[in-house]
């Protein structure tokens, strides 16, 4: 790969650290918070950040990474749009001796040496947490528990993983029945629209599991307009933990929220420095993420940034 040549070799260590970061896009508030956190921490850490937005297109992300290689950055970090299909470009980076860090989503590449570390949350885990809570919550009841699910954008990694994680958690007990499951594209409007249809077509709904808070918030409105009480008539489990959701929780409208922390800027910068300094870093770093009950949420609400 003459593209990068002996890329980072010729940069003195006194030289300001240059990181190329390729973001998926700006499809949600969560994503924006994630971007912001990274940009700010970079400023704080005195790292020069080359940021590029792929607008949900893997090919754009690949182009971006290529151009990082061209520009001979010191470290490349990116949150993959999707797990697969990165080997080629990552090889180019490797040939150019530029270490790569993954954030927020892993890649399924066989060749371990292509990236040094993966920093981020585990969507399957999140789904499981949501499911586990449900199992505990309904440990007492014996009757059927009718669940409706608002899925994320069809085919997107978080949607797939949160679905499967949740399914694993509840499959142990046959009383949990997912009676309806539709995509709400991670948006409030869709969430509301779909929930409204569910409320009409489903005679009995006990639980709503939403793949993200925006859809949950949309659904809450639908439930209220149908004259039911969200959180009591229909229990609501959701993922993300954005501020608006916490507000809703503090009003008891959401029963359980699994955090998916976008604020991994500082951790990333730490990692970058370590990697650059040649220290060994763990291959997998989980972002510290909690789960929230209404009480905890109410407590955490005041100092919630996003």
């Amino acid at each position, binding site marked *: 790969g003459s593209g990068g040549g002996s890329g980072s070799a010729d940069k003195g260590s006194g030289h300001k650290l240059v990181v190329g970061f390729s973001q998926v896009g700006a499809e949600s508030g969560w994503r924006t918070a994630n971007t912001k956190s990274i940009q700010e921490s970079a400023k704080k850490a005195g790292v020069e950040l080359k940021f590029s937005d792929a607008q949900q297109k893997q090919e754009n992300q690949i182009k971006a990474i*290529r151009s990082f290689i061209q520009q001979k950055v010191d470290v490349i970090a990116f949150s993959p749009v999707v797990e697969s299909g990165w080997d080629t470009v990552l090889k180019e980076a490797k040939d150019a001796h530029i270490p790569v860090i993954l954030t927020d989503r892993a890649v399924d590449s066989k060749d371990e040496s292509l990236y040094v570390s993966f920093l981020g949350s585990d969507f399957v885990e999140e789904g499981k947490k949501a499911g586990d809570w449900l199992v505990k919550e309904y440990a007492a009841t014996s009757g059927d528990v009718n669940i409706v699910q608002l899925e994320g954008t069809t085919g997107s990694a978080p949607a797939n993983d949160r679905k499967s994680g949740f399914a694993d958690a509840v499959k142990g007990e046959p009383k949990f029945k997912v009676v309806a499951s539709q995509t709400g594209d991670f948006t409030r409007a869709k969430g509301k629209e779909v929930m409204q249809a569910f409320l009409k077509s489903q005679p009995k709904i006990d639980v709503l599991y939403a793949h993200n808070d925006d859809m949950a918030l949309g659904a809450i409105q639908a439930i209220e307009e149908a004259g039911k009480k969200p959180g009591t008539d229909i229990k609501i489990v959701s993922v993300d933990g954005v501020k608006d959701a916490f507000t809703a929780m503090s009003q008891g409208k959401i029963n359980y929220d699994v955090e998916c922390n976008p604020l991994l800027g500082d951790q990333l910068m730490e990692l970058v420095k370590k990697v650059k300094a040649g220290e060994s870093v763990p291959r997998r770093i989980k972002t510290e993420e909690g789960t929230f009950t209404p009480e905890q949420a109410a407590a955490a609400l005041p100092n919630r940034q996003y």
Partner: protein
Amino acid sequence: MNAHALLTRLRGQIPLLVTAVLLVSMFSVGSVQYEGFFSGQVVLNLLIDNAFLLVVAVGMTFVVLTGGIDLSVGAVVALSTMVSAWLVEQHGWPPLLVIPLVLLMGTAGGWLMGWIIHVFEIQPFIVTLAGMFLARGLCYTISVESISITDPQYTAMAQTRIPLGSLFVSPSALIALLVVAVAFVVLHYTRLGRNVYALGGSEQSALLMGLPVQRTKTTVYAISGFCSALGGVLLTFYMLSGYGLHAVGLELDAIAAVVIGGTLLTGGSGYLLGTLLGVLVLGLIQTVISFQGTLSSWWTRIVIGALLFVFIVLQRLITARRR
């Protein structure tokens, strides 16, 4: 042939020249703006990164020239990547069997859409939109996950680099250029090509002049289907994965490339080389964006729009003045 004829011929080419000039000036601006921009490799990367778009746009050019439109291309690309990955990875079919199969599938799909459009006189927009839904839908019915490809032949195609001096291109880029060359010959030196233009000029007249309207139409959509499938194959090489969400909105990029290249959406007039330029313009804009590494997500979009705006307006003004 006389001077006047030469002049008219030249006048026909002016939009093309203007576009080319604008493209070059855009590149030079980028070169002075960003370090490392002015390198042969950047130019070659334009081809490498946009090979599949180029192929798709070529197919789209045929359709648009007849006054039609094909919205299914993006989805067909995705479907091709999906089917390839699925067959190769999960059924262990040999690539040399899978690739022709995928191409055949795309062609057949296109042909079918063309047939429906012509025989039932339904507007291309809807038929191909339905095609788009169907193709994407089929992707998900195969799998909602993305399937990554580890097959050695594919990885080879993905990672071979054909060196040009100190630079390199990918096989895909060469394939794309080949497609352009072939398409050029077809459009300008075969009866099919001329019929395409005639159809775009006036379908009624084409019919009354005894041209094979139905055959031409179906063929054109078949070509577009083929190109989409081939684009899908190239994308598979590029991404080494099949995924239902690949190439979302690609149809718009393709149409944009075609139209920027000076082809009229109403059909009948346009240039294949224009499409090549159009693709390069879009690619160059992307490159500028990625070199300009400080743009926030939304400024990225705004700047893309702005660049497009400047380009289009200049293109219009200059060509308009020349007329």
